[in-house]
């Protein structure tokens, strides 16, 4: 092994440690009591406890927060991908009056900070009875995830030769058959990437989710604020909740990992 490759290995190892350290710290904090966390510096918990995880798993408020968050995140992902797929197909295959302007307009929604839309969304959803429902948050997030999805998918779909469309037509396949059985599988990596981005945006977004919910659809990020109180911070429970909030992201990455890698390599992300 030459010197430069040894150096590269050490650099890579250092980078991995840098990435993993916060996660490791989160996990060890979740396994310690508050007195322990505030009292001593330990790399390995000397008195590990599962009390913090037990609190999360046994207290309905905590797991209901996860259920609420998952509900609107899944809803948002489903809506975004199902709306963006035909839209992206049209943008990639047809030229029509104002197509570029429309595409750009979609993207401009992505450019505005979520805070801009807080008040209109709050008033709109309050007036139609959607306030404090997972659907309200999912729809609000769609404002950002639909343009993102269309943009990602359009990039991939434009790379698929139009001859495939023509061949399917010549072979006598209906458009529906072509779209669902031929075109979508070709773009599987794009869908994987899109699902990942929609899921992660919605999962970590706090501002809209907090403002558009009260008590019934309260997301996990808001439940986590209950660890801050006038009698100090509940570090252990906060860390345990943090560990659980990382899990859905890991699950999504696990399901779409192969397509995600291809998608990153090929697409416009």
């Amino acid at each position, binding site marked *: 092994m030459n010197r430069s490759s040894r150096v590269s290995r050490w650099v890579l190892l250092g980078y991995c440690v840098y990435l993993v350290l916060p996660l490791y710290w989160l996990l060890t904090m979740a396994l310690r009591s*508050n*007195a322990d966390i*505030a*009292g001593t510096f330990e790399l390995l918990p000397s008195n590990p406890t599962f009390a913090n995880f037990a609190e999360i798993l046994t207290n*309905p*408020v905590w*797991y*209901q927060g*996860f*259920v609420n968050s*998952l*509900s609107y995140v*899944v809803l948002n*992902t*489903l809506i975004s991908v199902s709306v963006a797929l035909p839209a992206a197909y049209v943008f990639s295959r047809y030229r029509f009056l104002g197509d570029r302007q429309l595409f750009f307009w979609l993207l401009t929604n992505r450019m505005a900070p979520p805070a801009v839309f807080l008040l209109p969304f*709050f*008033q709109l959803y*309050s007036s139609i009875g959607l*306030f*404090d429902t997972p659907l309200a948050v999912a729809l609000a997030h769609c404002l950002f995830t639909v343009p993102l999805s269309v943009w990602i998918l359009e990039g991939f779909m434009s790379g698929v030769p139009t001859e495939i469309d023509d061949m399917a037509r010549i072979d006598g396949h209906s458009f529906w058959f072509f779209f669902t059985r031929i075109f*979508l*599988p*070709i773009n*599987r*990596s794009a*869908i*994987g990437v899109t*699902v990942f981005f929609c899921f992660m945006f919605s999962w970590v977004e706090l501002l809209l989710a*907090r*403002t558009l919910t*009260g*008590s*019934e659809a*309260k997301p996990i990020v*808001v*439940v986590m*604020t*209950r*660890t*801050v*109180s*006038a*009698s*100090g*911070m509940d570090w252990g429970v906060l860390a345990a909740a943090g560990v659980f909030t990382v899990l*859905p992201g890991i*699950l*999504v990455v696990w*399901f*779409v990992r192969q*397509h995600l890698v291809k998608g990153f390599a090929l697409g416009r992300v």
Partner: protein
Amino acid sequence: MGDCALVNSIVRGITGVFIVVGLVACGQTSDEASAPSISAQAYAANAERWVDSEFQPSTLTRDEQLAELAWFNTAAEPFRGMSINVVSETLTTHQYESETLAQAFYEITGIRVNHDLIQEGDVIEKLQTQMQSGENIFDAYVNDSDLIGTHSRYGYVVALSDFMSGEGADVTSPTLDLDDFIGLSFTTGPDGKVYQLPDQQFANLYWFRHDWFSDPELKEQFAARYGYPLGVPVNWSAYEDIAEFFSVHVKEIDGQRVYGHMDYGKKDPSLGWRFTDAWLSMAGAGDQGIPNGLPVDEWGIRAEQCRPVGSSVSRGGATNAPAAVYALQKYIDWLKAYAPEQAPGMTFSEAGPVPAQGQIAQQIFWYTTFTADMIKPDLPVVNADGTPKWRMAPSPHGPYWEEGMKLGYQDTGAWTLLSSTPLDRRKAAWLYAQFVTSKTVSLKKTLVGLTPFRDSDIRSQAMTDMAPKLGGLVEFYRSPARTAWTPTGTNVPDYPKLAQLWWANVANAVSGQVSAQAAMDSLAQQQDRVLERLQQHGTLGECGPRLNEERDAEYWFSQPGAPKPALDNEKPQGETVDYETLLSSWTAQDAEMAQ
């Protein structure tokens, strides 16, 4: 079909998530379904069960408790089956309400309560959103009485005095006993009406290591160095001497580094509370008057006939007066010279538990909400028999302070009803608010959360029995001295808008970017600008701000009271008092009052 692998993966993933969501939701549903179905006859039996199994001890007899619960049962009849949402910050007291009392209330009245717990800042945000939008987000809020000046002016909050005698008369408990609430004056507006119902109460006191202060060797060293005995500091000079003594001269006890002071200084909203709660009044910046100085309060805001007229010295306020600048400077000096190295980077929540780790000798600004966490066994600050090594005592005062002034902070989290909440939901929420503060449950709640709010509970035998383990909490609440500890008062017309100005200005001074004088000047100007805007809006009625014309500072310094001119000597002779002597004087005063 291999091409469909991704679609299959996604479908599997989403199905998996839905299954989990579905299972949990079913679990919820089945929980609800398996909850005992409540018939009208069952309510009385439920009440008996709760009284016997949970609501003991109480200052009421068992029969009185059952009679009180029977009233709740009858009053709740029109609202049976209703589900309401209420919210409060996270405190042990509110956790008890949310997890135990809400369930009891449901089983006794048939009204389901979702008692939500979120961070205090978020409670205020939801409250403001509801006030400004008129949309009902929560049916009731537990909100600190610091906002009394805001609530009494804006008209969004239901005046409970009117509600209890008007549209809420049929749902107001005959055994509520308002006079028994020790924080009622904090929730009363300048118009004499009660706007909020106290639910829990805590104070900010002086905290010290009684075991170290009683150590003969340390006492001797201190007396030899400073010329007066080591004890509970009466003034800031003594506090400063003791801080220096432990941080600079003693340095180590039993091989461990010790500090004579603890505080926090991170640029964070909690830095604002450190000042607006009481710090300026402890230094003596305001005027005499309880619960808040009049005409100038501890924010330095001057009010005339309930109208705020300015906070700069040039307008008759004291936010940038010498006493206020002195208060900020002392805070910075002590934080840098005597507190642990990491203290300036900490927030309120991070700094609070530090004294429990056993390195701190005293803390001038300590919240009693940390009591429960400071009496846990195996802590370095707790004896083997479970009694604390520490005590709490009255806070020392600065050189500008005079008798009759506010001496510390005490606040009550209080039930707040908004007029934008539909009447039937408001009535149901009012029933719940009265239930969790009723004498039937209040003593038990106090013993769990250690945030006493009823005089009858404080004087109960159960509190006497618990007193030795609480380091002076019970003695403080029983003493007449506690009236000098108060929350933000009615001079502050818009707490959220004004409070946010403090932490940024203070932080600039802590970091050394500007001097203490410049920071307070800037703060006073910003406060006056907010007051001016409120004046221009003109929506706050007869008690809305109307700024004084600016005048030469000397004019105001020559007037009696605040703003006070600079003292020639801001460090008079240190003065201390023996803790046991202090305690016995409290007990004697209390006995005198009882007679």
